[in-house]
């Protein structure tokens, strides 16, 4: 194990002499932490709509005004006919067309029932659906207002009061920031060790190491430890950034965050080395790692919620290590979950890390 010290000195020197790597370790978290939580929002707002008001009555113009002043919608244009509005929708300028018929006011006063039409661009189904819900709510409120003004009242049902726990303002930032840390870890600690070993293969220096009596474990450790430290740096640095930029701090224990990430870093770096042990050149290693990382990230719940997946897929994601770290990070950050509450995430992650590190060591052959 004495030789390990020398190998580590070498790895760190090489890492810092490669001007690009240290820059990336600092720049990537800064850029991503600044940018992603701000833009990675599926909040539906700033929706553009066009209103076709055929009625031109006082009630219809009040409705138009009410819709336009909502926080979710911008009144992009008022159109005279449907063709005009549809043209705007096809151009992508608007996503909602509200049509008020010419008998809107008359019907309301005569029968107490009137109607408006909404056409929503539902290419993004979530946007179309939520937008319609918002519009409907605004129209309902307007109707209630009219009733109250006219002195009509309906029987009051029980009030339903929603309370959103852990994220009371339903903000996407505290949801995305912890996940982003896991995503950056996956990218850096997943890619770099794999590329490092393969580049030694391509340059032939690995031969020179293989012909020495260095043990497998020592060699693998010398490749992993530098990236463990990089990984821990990324975690710590990103946590500080999340705190300073967005004021997001874990509701739970900081040590728990580190505990989970240590196990996760061990897992993902071992997987990276395993891939590199089976690859002949950089392109191959990068492709294979990329393949796994993309599938892991897409199916981990980082981007879309696990609960929305079909059951078989939810079960299948149990073999995805990113799933456990993503869930744990969000639960610690948002809900303040404790270790015992997260044990069901911790155990699979540990098993995964043991298997992958054994695999990494076993697949490294000093001999062909």
């Amino acid at each position, binding site marked *: 194990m004495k030789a390990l010290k020398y190998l580590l000195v070498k790895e760190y020197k090489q890492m810092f002499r490669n001007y690009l790597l240290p820059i990336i370790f600092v720049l990537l978290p800064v850029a991503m932490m600044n940018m992603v939580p701000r833009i990675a929002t599926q909040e539906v707002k700033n929706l553009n709509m066009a209103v076709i008001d055929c009625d031109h009555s006082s009630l219809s113009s009040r409705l138009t005004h009410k819709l336009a002043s909502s926080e979710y919608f911008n009144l992009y244009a008022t159109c005279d006919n449907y063709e005009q509005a549809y043209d705007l929708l096809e151009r992508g300028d608007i996503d909602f067309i509200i049509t008020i018929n010419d008998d809107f006011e008359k019907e309301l006063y005569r029968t107490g029932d009137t109607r408006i039409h909404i056409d929503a661009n539902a290419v993004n189904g979530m946007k179309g659906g939520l937008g319609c819900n918002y519009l409907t709510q605004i129209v309902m409120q307007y109707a209630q207002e009219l009733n109250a003004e006219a002195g009509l009242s309906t029987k009051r049902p029980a009030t339903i009061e929603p309370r959103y726990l852990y994220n009371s303002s339903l903000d996407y930032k505290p949801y995305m920031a912890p996940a982003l840390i896991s995503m950056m870890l996956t990218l850096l600690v997943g890619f770099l060790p794999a590329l490092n070993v393969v580049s030694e293969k391509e340059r032939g220096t690995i031969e*020179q190491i293989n012909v020495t*009596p260095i043990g497998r474990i020592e060699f693998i450790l010398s490749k992993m430890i530098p990236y463990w430290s990089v990984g821990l740096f990324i975690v710590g640095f990103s946590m500080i950034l999340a705190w300073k930029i967005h004021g997001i701090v874990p509701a739970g224990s900081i040590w728990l965050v580190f505990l989970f990430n240590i196990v996760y870093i061990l897992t993902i770096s071992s997987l990276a080395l395993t891939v590199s042990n089976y690859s002949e050149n950089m392109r191959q290693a990068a492709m294979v790692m990329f393949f796994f990382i993309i599938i892991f990230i897409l199916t981990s719940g980082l981007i879309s919620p696990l609960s929305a997946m079909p059951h078989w897929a939810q079960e299948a994601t149990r073999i995805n290590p990113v799933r456990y770290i993503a869930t744990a990070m969000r639960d610690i950050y948002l809900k303040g979950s404790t270790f015992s509450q997260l044990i069901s995430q911790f155990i699979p992650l540990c098993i995964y890390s043991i298997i992958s590190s054994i695999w990494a060591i076993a697949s490294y052959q000093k001999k062909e």
Partner: protein
Amino acid sequence: MTDKIVIKAEGLTKQFGKFIATNHISFEVHEGEIFGFLGANGAGKTTAMRMLCGLSHPSDGRASVAGYDIATQAEEVKRHIGYMSQKFSLYDDLTVEENFTLFGGIYGISRQKAKEKTTSLLTELGFESERKTMVRSLPLGWKQKLAFSLAIFHNPHIVFLDEPTGGVDPVTRRQFWELIYRAADRGITVFVTTHYMDEAEYCDRVSIMVDGKIEALDTPANLKRQFGGASMYDVFYALARTAKRVD
């Protein structure tokens, strides 16, 4: 040179699929000897050498290096050999000294000792001024000399050199062979592959491989007599033109 045998190969074979790279070769190398391993490109020299260094598992036959079996005691073998590969393989993003410290450390030489040894080695080479130079910026000839010094840095019993002088100028090659002689004088057995015939003349004994088999093995003088050539080039040409393998 003593009578003690340090490398002994018996029917050593390496097969890749249907292709037999090294076909049942047998030979012995004595302690302190400079043993030349000649052959055209693709004759199987590098494959044989990689097996002896414990980098490649033999398909058949057996061999021992420094008294250890290469198949079962590869890690023990590695403790007692030095190796310089065909492809230049020092870390070019480390300095000269850092490379020495690293490989010294791998063989258990302490930092202090490695430092002293590096100083004496570099002085001997007249290279003291480049101690802190990044290896990447050195000329090829110097890189080769350094790679050799590094291969014998830990005083191995045997050093394996795989075409060590490829691509360097005649003057540097000459200097390189002086280094080899100096190592041999210190009792290090040198196992060297080459296809420069003038270099073959410098060896104590030479084996010539054709199509994976050893076709001739003797001292350069005996070989010339046997094949009736004036130089090793004639000997080599006489054997190599029978080769069927084309690169």
